[in-house]
Every structure is written in structure tokens, then in C-alpha cells.
């Protein structure tokens, strides 16, 4: 597998150094408490992601990559440091402010899809739009368009258990993009899929990155999945172990 098409790779379509980053992580630290023990997970991590970039975060289990993704997506809180996303310092937002920001700015793609089993594919995709001012008819039109974009126009009325793993993940991707968020965060999006379905999902993510210019941050264990990203950063024991290649270009 190769990375996303050349026109969207770091060297070409990816933003130039003068453009402001869409995500900027500054000296972020995070620790969890287990019983009476404090376990540091991230230790002063700093990096940035430019608009339209597709970043893969890699590292062994427990290295802090999912925690970092959660912090960027605003579903967890930093202990120290700051995270700017689209010009907003999300570490200063309260819970409701953060929820509002997530509904507008972030699309989630989970490893286990996290679709609502009792709702159809269309209703699952329509769900995040309940938080928008759209009418019911507009919501359904948007949801249908998103499902068509991921190639599931003919599966709208199916429930998740009537879809294959790859189709469920595509439904989840449609749900992630239906609100037209600034960034997509994906936690092991191919981790529960067979090789062929995984390739389809990665192709789809590349397509979204290319055609819609979506900034994608993906956590993965799979080197083949990471190959599709423009940029791969590695974490180990809460520290980024590689230098940002853009700083040397």
C-alpha cells in the first residue's frame, strides 16, 4: 500500500509552513491514577498538524497514543499544557462548551464502530445532526448524502447487525463526516476488520482527505495502515520518539 495520492501528500497539497496549524499540541502531560499509584501517560508532548494533513500515530500498547488522540478530540482533559484546534484552546472549555465544540468540529471513527444497534444506518448517521439547527428533512438529506459518499446508498435501512464489519465502519465514517467537522479522529479504524475491508476503509479515508480536505488523525498499530498517512509520528512511554520531518524539510 502507498500513502494517499501525491497531490494531497505532505510535500504538495499539505499546507505550507506559513499556514497556521489546525491542531497544535503544546507541552501536554497526562497521568492516570490507579489505586494510589499515579501512572504518567504523556510527558510534555508537543507537535502540530497542518490543515488537510493525514497523520498516523503509532507506538506500542500503553505508549499514550489513544490518550493523545482523546485529548486532541476533546474527550479527555490534559493535566498540563494546551491544545489548540482550529484556533480554539480546547483545554479552557468547560464540559458543555467542549461537547458543543466536538459536535461541530470533530468526527469520530472508533475501532468497534460504536453504532447504535437499534437504529438503521440512516438513523445512525442522522443522529449527530440532532445537535444542529437543521430540520428533520434536511437532516435526512444530509445523512443520505453522507451514506452515498461512503458507498452505502443501498444499505440505508439496514441495522448494523445486517451489515458487514467494513460496511459498519463505513457507516461510522458517514456519521463522522455528516456534520462536516474540521478534523476526523480515528482510533484503530481497521483494527477489527479483515485485510480487504481494512483496505477499503483506508481508501475511503484517503478519499475524504483528498476530496474534502479533511484533516485526519489516526491511531494505529498496523504499519500498512500507517503507510497511507502523510506523516507518521511514534510515541513511546508518553514521549514522541521521532522528530517532525517538516522541521527538516
Amino acid at each position, binding site marked *: 500500500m502507498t500513502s494517499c495520492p501525491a497531490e494531497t501528500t505532505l510535500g504538495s497539497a499539505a499546507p505550507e509552513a506559513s499556514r497556521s496549524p489546525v491542531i497544535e499540541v503544546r507541552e501536554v502531560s497526562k497521568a492516570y491514577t490507579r489505586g494510589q499509584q499515579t501512572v504518567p501517560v504523556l510527558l510534555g508532548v508537543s507537535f502540530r498538524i497542518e490543515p488537510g494533513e493525514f497523520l498516523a500515530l503509532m507506538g506500542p500498547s500503553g505508549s499514550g497514543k489513544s*490518550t493523545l488522540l*482523546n485529548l486532541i478530540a476533546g*474527550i479527555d482533559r490534559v493535566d498540563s499544557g494546551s491544545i489548540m484546534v482550529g484556533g480554539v484552546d480546547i483545554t479552557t472549555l468547560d464540559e458543555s462548551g467542549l*461537547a458543543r465544540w*466536538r459536535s461541530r468540529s470533530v468526527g*469520530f471513527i472508533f475501532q468497534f464502530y*460504536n453504532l447504535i444497534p437499534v437504529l438503521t444506518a440512516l438513523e445512525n448517521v*442522522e*443522529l449527530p445532526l440532532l*445537535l444542529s439547527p437543521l430540520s428533520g428533512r434536511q437532516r435526512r438529506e444530509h445523512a443520505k448524502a453522507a451514506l452515498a459518499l461512503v458507498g452505502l446508498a443501498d444499505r440505508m435501512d439496514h441495522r448494523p447487525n445486517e451489515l458487514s464489519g467494513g460496511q459498519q465502519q463505513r457507516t461510522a465514517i458517514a456519521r463522522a463526516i455528516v456534520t462536516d467537522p474540521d478534523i476526523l479522529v480515528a482510533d484503530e479504524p481497521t483494527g477489527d476488520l479483515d485485510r480487504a475491508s481494512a483496505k477499503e476503509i483506508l481508501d475511503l479515508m484517503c478519499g475524504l482527505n483528498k476530496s474534502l480536505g479533511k484533516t485526519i488523525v489516526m491511531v494505529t498499530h498496523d504499519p500498512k495502515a500507517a503507510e497511507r498517512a502523510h506523516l507518521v509520528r511514534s510515541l513511546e512511554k508518553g514521549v514522541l520518539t521521532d522528530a517532525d520531518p517538516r522541521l527538516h524539510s
Partner: protein
Amino acid sequence: MLTLVFILKNLSRHKLRNTLTIVGIAMSVLSFGLLRTTVDAWYAGVEASSSTRLITRNSISLIFSLPISYGDRIRGVEGVTRVCQGNWFGGEYIDEKNFFPNFAVEPRTYFELYPEFVLPVDQKEAFLRDRKGCVIGRKLADRFGWKIGDPVTLKGTIYPGDWGFTIRAIYSGRDKSADETQLLFHWDYLNETLRKASPRQADQTGFFIVGIRDAENAAGISRTLDARFANSLAETLTETEKAFQMSFVTMSEAIVSAIQIVSSLVLVIIMAVAANTMAMSARERMGEFAALKALGFGGWYLAMLILGESLAIAAIGCALGCALTFPVAAAFGDAVSQYFPVFQVSGATVLLQVFSALAVGFVAGVVPALRARSVGIAEALRRLG
């Protein structure tokens, strides 16, 4: 709309569990309704009583009688319009299993005092003409298949012997609360028979029913009547018909209280069952709630989903329970008509059923809803993985 669809579709997740919970709620709503109706039936006599009727009886006890001569002295009290003497006859039809209330009354004034007992004019005339005639209620007629002209023999328990009557009239209740299970016959027939068989018991009555012009004067007239017979051999106790009926209910207050406690316990038990269902349902979906929160839904939305689901289960159970209450109460009422002549499900009972079921739904959903509201996104998603 989608949220409503979401809530309703959530009911299909664990069909067996939710169905059992709904059936449980329906049964408890039904039980609650039946128990409440039983309590209402206990008070039916109180509810049916008139504020312009007083009952004068022996102040020692109802089993002691009063001289019939008191009737004229009562009539002379200002504000009294009619006086009717009556005796609890206590006769049995074949055996004690066929119990129904039967009274000897002065018939003309009795039906003037009780306009809620409606009987055709020709039947009433026929009854008044026949000293050994009797009037029965519609339900009593239906119970034994009696019709006009049928002979009825009662075995006396207070007044020994076999007492033969001919059914001359069948009355119907003007209101649902009217007792249609009584047998009424001429007080004169009782008294004349007693004069021959047991002269000591003759010219005595168990109670007087006193009609008054103005309900507001009930207390004053009662005091006047009782004062009039003070220091006599048979002092009187006069009270409103409501208070008189209430005194019978008070005798069985412990049973009524027990029924009320049981009806509340039924609700508490089903509340625990429903709460368990909702707790299990919410616990299984914590990952889903975390995902919804990640999408931007607030904690209160999740709480609303859980509460909505809990209320939907309760509402379905309630609808089922209320719908069953009417036919079951009718069947139960028929089976116990000799004890509860009036067994009607009241509007207030249905309202209480609805309120109780919704309260069960709300309380059962509160704790799981609060848990869902406060679920930590990252932690719940990590557990899911």
C-alpha cells in the same frame, strides 16, 4: 422525532426482559387498581349516603332497639321532614352462603327518603298493597334469577322461623353508587308477626331514618333529638347517615389499612423490578453512551433517553394494566357482590394508577439516568475496547 424513535427502538433491545417488566408493571397496576377499588367498595355506603338523612339508634349499641313510639316525637322536632323506622332482619336465603342485606322498613316513607332507589309506579303500588310483599334490587334479582311474583322464603336468624315473601317490585339504582342487592319488606309484617310470636320484641325498631330539610342543621337536630330522649330507658344516638355508615367501616379499619399498605407495597416491589431492568439496560450501554457523548450529546440528553425509555416501559405497562382493570374488576365484583354491592372502578382510581405507574417509571430511571449522564467518555470507551 428521531429521539422519540430512538427511545422506542431501545425497547426492542431485550425483548424478553422488557416484556416481562411491562407485564410486571401491568399486573401491579391491575392489582393496585383492584385493591383501590376494594377500598372504595368498603366506603361505597359512605359515599352513597345523603347529607339530609340522619340515623337515630339506641345509644348503647345498634343491637338494642328503640320504642316505636319515639317516631312521633322525632317527627315533632323542627326541621324533620320524614321519619321511617327500620330493622335489620338478617334473614338467610337457603343458607348463609347466599348472604344479602334484608331490612324491614316502613315502605312509603322509605322510598321518599331514598329517591336513588327507583322502582316502577305499578310495582310500587303492588308492593304497598301486599303486606307480605317485598322489593328487591336489580343485582339481587339477577343473582338468583328472581322475577316479579316469585315467592322467597328467608330463614330468620334474629327473628326465628321461616318468613315467606312475594316479590312485588324490583328497584334500580339511580346512581352507580346505589346498592342494588337489598331485599326490603313491610315493617308492619315483621311487627305483627312478633306481636303473636314474641310480644317482648314487638313495637320496637332497630333504628329510625330521619329526613331533614336542611343538611346544615344536621348537628343541631341530632343534639335536639338525643336531648329529647335523654335519661329515658332507651337513650338515643343520632348521627348523619354518613357518620353512621362510617362507623361500620371503622370497625374494619385494620383490614382497609392492610389493603392500602399492600397496594403501596405492590408499587414498591415493581419499582425495584423496573429499576433493576433500567440499571441493567443502562449498564450494558455505557460504551454507547460514551460514543454519543463523544459526538457532542450532553449528559442530560443521555439521561433523557434513559428516563424516556423507563417512562415508555411504565406507560405501556400502565395502559395494559388500566385496560385489564375494568373487565377484571367487573368479574371480581360479580364474584363478591354479596359483600361489595357496589364495586366500580372510579376515575380517581384510574388517575392514581396512571400517576403511580409514571412515578414507578420515573423513579426506576433516575439512578441509571444520572449514571449515564456522568459517564466518563474516555474511560467508558477504553473499557469497551
